[in-house]
């Protein structure tokens, strides 16, 4: 299971819809950020994440008869929303972790910061004059 896998892309575009408009280079930048963050975590956590992504891909088969990456965006969103509200801490926490990685990959890019109008500058007030 890699960050270029259909399931990660499916979750990422659901969490941040604008991610579907990223070109290949931008997507690579996002994936590289996420990969670095994962690599810095303990092995056990990396394994848990890989396993959770597999579960994410196959869980919807039970309810919708399709894997997550094959679901239409509305059903995908509904499924992920159920996960984040799950009574099981394990599922809520797993989704929270994947969601955090996606947001780090997307909003950690300087281009995304500029796109949302974030303008912090080391020169502070002087940069606004």
């Amino acid at each position, binding site marked *: 299971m890699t960050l270029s896998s259909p399931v990660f892309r499916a979750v990422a575009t659901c969490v941040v819809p604008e991610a579907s408009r990223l070109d290949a280079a931008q997507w690579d930048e996002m994936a590289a950020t996420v990969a670095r963050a994962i690599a810095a975590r303990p092995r056990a956590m990396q394994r848990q994440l890989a396993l959770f992504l597999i579960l994410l891909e196959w869980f919807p088969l039970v309810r919708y008869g399709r894997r997550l990456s094959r679901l239409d965006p509305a059903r995908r969103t509904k499924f992920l929303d159920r996960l984040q509200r799950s009574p099981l801490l394990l599922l809520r926490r797993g989704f*929270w972790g994947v969601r955090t990685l996606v947001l780090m990959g997307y909003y950690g890019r300087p281009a995304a910061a500029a796109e949302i109008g974030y303008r*912090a500058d080391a020169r502070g007030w002087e940069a606004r004059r």
Partner: protein
Amino acid sequence: MSASRSYDIVIIGSGAGGGTVAQELAPLVRDGVRILVLEKGPRFADQEFTGRELEMADALYQDGGAFLTRDGTMTLAFASAYGGSTVVYTGTSLTAPLRVIRAWGVPGLEHADLTRRSAKYAEQNNVHALDDPLINDNNRLFVEGGRKAGYLVEQFPVNVQGCRGSSLCNLGCPNQAKQGTNRVQLPRAERAGVEVVTRAEVLRIEPDRTLTVRVSQKAAGTKGAPSEWAPGDYAVRARIVVAAAGAIGTSALLLRSPLPAPRSLGHGFTCHPALILVAEHPRPITNDVGHPKSYFVDHGASERFVLETCMYFPFVTAKSLTGFGATHSAIMHAFPRLQMILILACDHVASGNRIAVSRTGSPIVHYRFTPETIDGLVRGTRAAARIFFAAGARRVHAPADPPLLETADADRLEERVTARHFRPGMLAVSAAHLMGGCGMGRTAADSVTDAWGRVHGLPWLRVADASLFPDSLEINPYLTIMGLADRVAEGVRRDLAVVRD
């Protein structure tokens, strides 16, 4: 072991506690006392503080600022650098409340003494209230909204000098305006002859006062200077050891050391769990320029929460919002119109909330939210929403279902914001005020150290950081840490005098 070294005093950690002890003991160098500070993190050059979010978070914080608690429901932020977490705080400088120190009930620790010592560092670090022209809209709206909503809004004294208003305090000030120990106490100590070695992690302390120290190599392409010592393992002998590696670092170090430490070591961990709330105004406001944290509302005593102004960076903001998808994106795209408030819950010591170590000696933090802590977050969220609306926000993003509170919701916040929306694992709770683990008290039966930071049963070992707090402080802790560290330094001086006599 590649080398053995010997010192009279070894201080572990260089943050608010370690940096203070180093400065206070530095005059002893003139008398031939050899003092060493061992800091796990690197020493950064001024130009390395770029303000870029992920780059600086990776460089400065343990686990990029997202050290996870054991059950994965909260992240803890603490720095690893020359100057410790004083490099990444906002410099908000409050002295310990009388009611808290009284409630701690530590024999020999008087509020007046702590206040006097904290005041010394407030002066040393140029603590003052920012002038009005330097206050941005994000802070101004908090004042206006807070007062309209009936709250007592107070201004934070901050320890800056020449603040240009980059708003990047939590990523390390790019203008070196913040007066942390990296700018004030450590340079003074070094000038007086104290040796500071960075990238030096203390793995354990032996009962014969030998420290096993591992000095790391600077990895290619990373920030920070190489260590002052050659990479490798060292045996460092000390007559007196001062552990000031932070609540987690000190507790974990003592736990993995073969020492006869008191049973409560690691227990009593508190951290002011915090939530970031945002609200959208109809027009752009100045938020990502100016000092981010200038005002607060303290309801710690009555409702177990404190509200503080804040302004975070794109990724931290994104992860702090509830939910995902189009609604989440819309709020992110409103960034220039966002007002932010940080809600801190005043948690208290609870059974099971503690610091432990894994089989390999890595720290593990066990933390469960008590109903009282959740209640503090819920009440704080409602109060923040009241302030946002009173300040003119048109909608507030909060843990609720759906997560957008419109102006029509302002009158029914009790109904819209309830504890069921604050289930762990559903929202991004983080904490940066890490306290406890080596609590002060009377004897080894009820605490780890005495009121002067001396570990019960180990007179040569002292603790000088927030791990000393026997319970939550309910305010930003660094001045209290410095006040306690000042007492530790005084105790060390006394010990040395006795040895000499």
